[in-house]
């Protein structure tokens, strides 16, 4: 650690870094932090620096959560600590005198904070390591880019915007990507400079929609990469005078997902590789846990009021807790034929979800499967869309029913930890309350102005 600290110090002096932007992620996935002078940053490297805990105490509309208090909070307002993860230190290519580093939030005592999603994910990765398992993960990031400037988009209420593509919804069309090159080239240049490994990108199904695919990485790094991609895509949009959104359903027709793939190895062997076409016992229990806890995990995959508008049949989003071999209609897609690419893709999360929590929910589900010997049901065997309302394990369809499912699932709660789950459920019920009592329309069947105002530019 000290050699890494020395190395960072040398780099700051050598590269003329004057400011270090410290970044942490709230439960809602917002990036918060400070800009510190290089001197202040280096002086606080060993312990981290303070930030007001209210940074985690407000909802997406800026209203303080004034309906509960957490045990870790001081009786009045106080500070928590931003503890930098120096492995994530990078110089910003668009601001050469500024570096950035991702941080974990901890209590002043140094104890982990239950609402630090990055720490939660790391704890689960450590738990796996303790059992001799190594996880790798990779996200698919979807976003929609529009030609209007932020101020013009706001004036239009984020409706009827001009997609950065042809108006037709086709997908994989290079003709569309051509419209996005100027924007994408700059995004990719900056991502490469800060060490985010992009495996590929392509035009997605909605007008103006782009999908970026990441190389597999350690789970915490995989989620870090999503945070960096979203930041960078927003920064470039701001610099080029356009807008980008990761909202789960910014319009009535199209949505953004955040699919996540993960693999497991034990002693170098791929756990999800189906030798002779059959998944092994550990893989079956792991997958059984992931599928069984999906209704509860939906709260983390679909965190907002708007997230659930994406969860409709025949729209590429899953609606039932199902799995299948290479089946993209299922919530969980299993690719098990090749040892080198054996993995599980979870397709529930919306683009508005916190990537640390998405992956934490998947890993916690797998761990629950191992701990409780959860049986794997048969693969769904039919298309997972348009199924009758009864007789199938439908996923929750509202923010409140998803929170109830999480509250009721002792297996997932145990793996995620009660302090985190309790805090999460309170914030989701708060979001429900805010929607219904500050102008959201309970009878709306499509995305409302309330949702666009609250989510379009920040989630």
């Amino acid at each position: 650690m000290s050699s890494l600290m020395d190395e960072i110090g040398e780099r700051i002096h050598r590269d003329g870094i004057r400011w270090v932007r410290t970044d942490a992620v709230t439960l809602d996935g917002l990036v918060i932090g400070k800009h510190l002078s290089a001197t202040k940053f280096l002086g606080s490297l060993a312990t981290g620096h303070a930030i007001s805990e209210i940074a985690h105490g407000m909802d997406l509309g800026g209203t303080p959560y004034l309906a509960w208090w957490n045990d870790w909070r001081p009786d009045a307002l106080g500070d928590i600590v931003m503890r930098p993860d120096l492995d994530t230190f990078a110089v910003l290519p668009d601001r050469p005198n500024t570096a950035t580093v991702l941080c974990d939030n901890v209590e002043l005592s140094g104890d982990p904070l239950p609402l630090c999603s990055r720490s939660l994910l790391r704890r689960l990765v450590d738990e796996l390591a303790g059992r001799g398992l190594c996880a790798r993960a990779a996200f698919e990031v979807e976003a929609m880019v529009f030609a209007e400037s932020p101020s013009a988009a706001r004036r239009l209420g984020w409706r009827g915007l001009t997609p950065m593509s042809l108006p037709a919804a086709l997908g994989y069309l290079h003709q569309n990507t051509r419209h996005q090159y100027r924007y994408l080239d700059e995004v990719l240049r900056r991502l490469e400079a800060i060490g985010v490994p992009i495996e590929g990108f392509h035009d997605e199904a909605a007008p103006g929609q782009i999908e970026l695919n990441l190389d597999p990485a350690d789970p915490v790094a995989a989620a870090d990469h999503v945070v960096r991609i979203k930041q960078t895509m927003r920064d470039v949009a701001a610099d080029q005078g356009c807008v980008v959104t990761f909202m789960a359903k910014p319009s009535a027709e199209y949505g953004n997902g955040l699919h996540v793939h993960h693999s497991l190895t034990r002693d170098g062997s791929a756990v999800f590789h189906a030798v002779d076409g059959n998944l092994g016992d550990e893989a079956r229990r792991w997958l059984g846990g992931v599928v069984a806890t999906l209704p509860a995990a939906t709260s983390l995959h679909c965190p907002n009021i708007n997230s659930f508008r994406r969860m409709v049949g025949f729209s590429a989003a899953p609606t039932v807790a199902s799995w299948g071999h290479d089946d993209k209609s299922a919530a969980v897609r299993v690719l098990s034929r090749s040892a080198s690419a054996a993995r599980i893709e979870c397709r529930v999360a919306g683009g508005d979800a916190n990537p640390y929590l998405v992956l934490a929910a998947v890993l916690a589900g797998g761990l629950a499967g191992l701990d409780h010997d959860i049986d794997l049901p048969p693969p769904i065997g039919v298309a997972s869309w348009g199924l009758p309302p009864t007789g199938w394990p439908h996923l929750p369809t509202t923010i409140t029913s998803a929170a109830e499912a999480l509250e009721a699932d002792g297996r997932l709660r145990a793996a995620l930890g009660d302090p985190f789950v309790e805090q999460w459920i309170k914030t989701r019920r708060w979001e429900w309350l805010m929607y219904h009592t500050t102008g959201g329309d309970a009878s709306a069947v499509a995305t409302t102005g309330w949702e666009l105002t609250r989510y379009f530019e920040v989630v």
Partner: protein
Amino acid sequence: MESIVDVEHDPVPLVLIMANVLRRNESDPKRARLLAHTAGRVVFRSASDPQVVTIEFRRGRVMVTRGAAPDADMTIVADLATMSEEKPPKPAVSGALSHLRLALAVSKLLDPPVGDWQQEAERFWAYASPRPGCPSGLKVTCLDDGRVAEFGVRPAEYEIHGTAHRLRSVFSGGSVLGEDLLAGKLYAVGMLRHTAELTGCSLDWMMGR
């Protein structure tokens, strides 16, 4: 005793609030009979935002659901933001003339009996005090006449000060503690921790949870 007031699956806040208001009638035998014998469909709509519910009185059961039933007998449009004021603006009512009996019943049932501020504070304390995070003691001071009510451990960890009307409103579930504090309608002496926890209780109390 089981309530005859039901709510929809996965209810919205206004459904819970209206159901809670209606259930308060059940503690009074005469009002409980009125609740059980009323028939008709009433839409209750917010004047300032999209919140709207339908109350269906089915002689023996009452169902509260989100949205406006197209075939409602009566519609009431009220300003939710000012309903807890001492002299709130009168709601706009349509359909009352052709459904006089229903209108009379509903006007009573949506205005259930509320005790004085001390009685309501006592009820609220009985509800809130067992919940984790609440202060061990509560002192309430009426700014109209200086009267004081104290609950739990003394000296109280938390104090609420306000006019008799505002105290009655917040303790009966007509308004929310945190909102009243932010609006300067009530005052508090205590820690933010307790303000937050009591506000959570106040919200749940209002929604009958």
